[in-house]
């Protein structure tokens, strides 16, 4: 460990709040957009489906870095709107991962057995009630593991925000580079460990949610016991 390890660690840690805010903000936006776009992909209206499909393919199929540059550098030039770097970052993280999340929501909703919808229909639930009361609570359990993956990917993508000068942990590390050239291995190890800790926090939270969700539908929280709760 280098002599000035304390200084290096404390400098990088100054970036931690920005990384956490970007990740939490991005996750919140991802959840909202995933649900909205995922349900839109299942809409009966063709126009709504097309709009959702354009969003998903457009955001999923283009570079996240270029999206970020576009929002941060091109938008001001075009319409004179200069976003705060952190907000631009959260927006891109949410928009991009929301596109992936939409497919998770769509897949999980479609995986709920048709018989559940028919059971709800036989009780005269409206389409919205069928979705809200019967389908989504069951689909929710299926969404949690893939959303856990997605949130961890989002966390690691917050490093991209260093490109637009958000002072998150990577940016803080880069600021040390001119004066701490010999300590680069240590600097990057600290950054990697910070991401690992945050990822483990996300994993733990998602596990808890998954357990609670499984218990709510009377299912053991073990993947291969899937059929146990349905029959």
């Amino acid at each position: 460990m280098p002599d000035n390890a304390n200084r290096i660690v404390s400098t990088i840690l100054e970036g931690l709040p920005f990384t956490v805010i970007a990740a939490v903000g991005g996750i919140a936006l991802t959840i909202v957009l995933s649900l909205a776009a995922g349900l839109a992909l299942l809409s009966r209206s063709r126009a709504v489906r097309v709009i959702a499909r354009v969003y998903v393919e457009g955001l999923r199929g283009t570079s996240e870095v270029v999206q970020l540059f576009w929002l941060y550098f091109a938008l001001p030039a075009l319409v004179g709107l200069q976003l705060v770097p952190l907000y631009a970052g959260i927006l891109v993280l949410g928009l991009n991962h929301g596109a992936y999340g939409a497919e998770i929501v769509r897949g999980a909703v479609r995986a709920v057995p048709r018989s559940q919808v028919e059971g709800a229909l036989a009780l005269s639930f409206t389409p919205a009630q069928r979705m809200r009361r019967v389908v989504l609570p069951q689909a929710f359990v299926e969404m949690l593991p893939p959303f856990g993956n997605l949130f961890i990917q989002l966390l690691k993508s917050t490093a991209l925000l260093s490109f637009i000068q958000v002072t998150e942990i990577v940016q803080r590390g880069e600021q040390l580079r001119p004066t701490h050239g010999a300590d680069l291995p240590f600097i990057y190890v600290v950054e990697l460990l910070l991401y690992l800790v945050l990822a483990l926090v996300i994993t733990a939270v998602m596990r808890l949610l998954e357990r609670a969700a499984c218990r709510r539908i009377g299912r053991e929280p073990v993947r291969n016991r899937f059929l146990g709760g349905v029959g």
Partner: protein
Amino acid sequence: MSNQSDPPMIRFDNVVKRFGDNTVLDGFTCRMAPGEFVTLIGPSGSGKTTILRLVMTLERVTDGLIEIDGSPLSHMHRGGKLVPADEKHLAGVRTRIGMVFQQFNLFPNMTVLRNITEAPVRVLGLTPAEADERARDLLDLVGLADKADEHPSRLSGGQQQRVAIARALAMRPDVLLLDEVTSALDPELVAGVLGLLGHIADTTDITFLCVTHEMGFARDVSDRVLMFDHGRVIEDAPPERLFTDPREERTREFLQAVVGRT
């Protein structure tokens, strides 16, 4: 017992249902009186379940008309003409119809009690207390008063089906559709569920439309039995006549095959 001169609770007028090129129902015409218990029998694929699904509005008719208590089910009046029903019209008539499914279709994300109270509260507008009381009375009726707070997955198939029956009754339907409700049950649980349904049929004025392979049950509780084959009714008679003295050769063959099996 039914009286054929009553205005019908359900009327099928030349109902046709096709899936692509496959005609599953070929001009079905029939009237069912209020309180009547009608059982549909016949080989699988003969169109029986399709009739229930059409009445529940899970499927749309290809041609013809279905009326519930004088008002069109699959169609609605618009500008003096009958046009295919929209979602709003369907939502209105659907509340008069209930269905019990082969696979129960209980909601795993709700307790037994919530399964029964959810629709009365959300659809019929009962207060939670009213729905709760109604649900507990029904759980008493089906013999599961102690299971109100369980998850459906903790119950046996027979218990789940009793809950499904209670859930359907909680909506106070005029018409109750029974779609092979004992086919998914272990043999020792069948009699209990059928006994319960017989009791409900005897003590309420609900019109029952039932698809079953339990010929003893059909014989005991039905007012009428319709024999289906290839999408058409080939025989329509009271059970005592149809089971002892079938007029059609096809009915006789079918009954022999089924009785031989059970």
